């Protein structure tokens, strides 16, 4: 069932755009929706806020995100979902949340929930969209940029290493580019830390039927998008290959 929602808020930060809307459905951090309006293809986007007002925050990377950014207050969107499992947090573990690049968007709800958070981006500008959330964060926040233009100079994994020098955590909840997650996962395994990571694959149905989003025998849309450290350890495709819209295996660069 899709819902037709009306855009009630919009912010633009360079090539990152955020649209908010009222949608009366319970959603957990890490869950995603399929977003559509005439003139674009339907695309999966994580929810970047999950309270009474919901939002999606996306980087303009191609035709559909470009079309979506053209939407303004009062425009209608088709929203299918929420889909996927989301992050599981039960308060029994000390959790560090890690977001990289546009992968910060899906972890904003965790930040709003008060978890300590590490944010990594290429440069200061790419973090602008997260500043309002950082301002309101109840937990600790750390920042790194590849070029050192804001916060610690280095990547997400390096930032996490720094943080762990001053503070102890049992588990990492992360979202970001697969290459970042690949090394972060390796770091967790090497250091005996638990983790949950949100993965991405090409999605069509979003609901677990069509099989276009498989990593090994897992459906990213329905069995994920958030997978545990152990699940990821068993994935031959992780960091290695994905499927194109035909289902053909494509190796990462």
């Amino acid at each position, binding site marked *: 069932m*899709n819902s037709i929602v009306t855009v009630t808020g919009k912010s633009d930060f360079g090539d990152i755009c955020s649209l908010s809307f009222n949608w009366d459905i319970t959603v957990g951090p890490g869950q995603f929706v399929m977003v559509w309006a005439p003139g674009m293809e339907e695309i999966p986007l994580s929810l970047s806020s999950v309270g009474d007002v919901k939002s999606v925050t996306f980087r303009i990377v191609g035709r559909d995100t470009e079309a979506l950014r053209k939407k303004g207050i009062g425009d*209608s969107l088709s929203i299918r979902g929420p889909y996927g499992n989301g992050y599981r947090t039960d308060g029994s573990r000390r959790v560090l949340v890690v977001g990289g690049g546009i992968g910060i968007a899906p972890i904003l709800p965790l930040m709003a929930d008060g978890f300590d958070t590490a944010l990594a981006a290429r440069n200061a500008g790419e973090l602008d969209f997260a500043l309002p959330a950082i301002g309101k964060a109840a937990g600790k926040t750390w920042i790194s940029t590849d070029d050192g233009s804001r916060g610690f100079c280095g990547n997400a994994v390096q930032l996490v290493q720094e943080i762990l020098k001053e503070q102890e955590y049992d588990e990492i909840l992360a979202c970001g580019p697969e290459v970042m997650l690949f090394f972060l996962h390796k770091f967790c395994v090497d250091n005996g830390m638990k983790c949950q990571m949100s993965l991405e694959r090409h*999605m069509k149905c979003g609901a677990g039927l069509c099989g276009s989003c498989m990593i090994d025998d897992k459906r990213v849309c329905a069995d994920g998008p958030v997978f545990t450290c152990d699940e990821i350890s068993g994935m031959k495709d992780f960091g290695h290959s994905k499927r194109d819209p035909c*289902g053909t295996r494509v190796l990462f660069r």
Partner: protein
Amino acid sequence: MDLRTSVGSLVLDNPCILASGIMDETGEGMARILRSGAAAAVSKSVGTNPNPGHANPNFIEEEGFCLNAMGLPNPGIEEYAGEMRTAAACGKVIGSVYASSPEEFADLAGRMEDYGACAVELNLSCPHAAGFGMEVGTDPLMVKRIVSAVKDAVSIPVWSKLTPNTHILKDIGKAVEDAGGDAIVAINTLRAMKIIPEFGRPFLSNRFGGLSGSAVRPVGVRAVYDLYSTVSIPIIGVGGICGYRDALEYIMAGACAVQIGTAVLSGTDIFRKVNGGLTDFMREYGYPTIGEMVGVAHE
């Protein structure tokens, strides 16, 4: 209670098969379903060349039904070899193929046999792929030529999957039988459309799609009942099966096995649940085998 059944010469551990197009674009997807209790899995319908299918949006679920217009995405028969081999190593896999001519069908079916398929399923019924599916599958003469050509090309059983979007289903069934087809699979989805009033246009990028899920079950059961009274080759029932009682409707209408698609939405344990329910039912109502229930609703 013995859940074993046979579709012609093919013996299955239980009557539940994964329907084509569901979690079967990859070999590992099919392997998982085989581990989840399905007796066999039908592959994604595969064509000669890679096909990305229709653009998103191509799927929507509503209460009681789903609508899809995936548009037969597949990596092409060449590339699909690996997926078939992965799956076939884990159990019985039926290779589904689509084409627009008898020769192309025969060629694809031959490849599926080479890849280890235990049977081939001819998609004569997809309602949203121009030039394929039901566009070839509603012409009894064409159906006869396709089935004959495939029969000549392979030695594994040849199943034909038919569309309910026609008033001549019995004629098409007869054409399959006359051409030596080994089994009929019914039904594929119903040609359908959803329009979003607020946008004033169809939701699916392809506009037309296929209706599946509970909503189509009474149509599917009717189709199987009609076919059972017309042909004597085995029938496999599919469409809206969400529980063991739904499977029983098909079996009693005349199906010796069933396929499950949309209900995978409720979890991949659906195959185990249906098999469990069948076992309990057979115990309570005194049916020793699946075979004893096939077609009883005709008496």
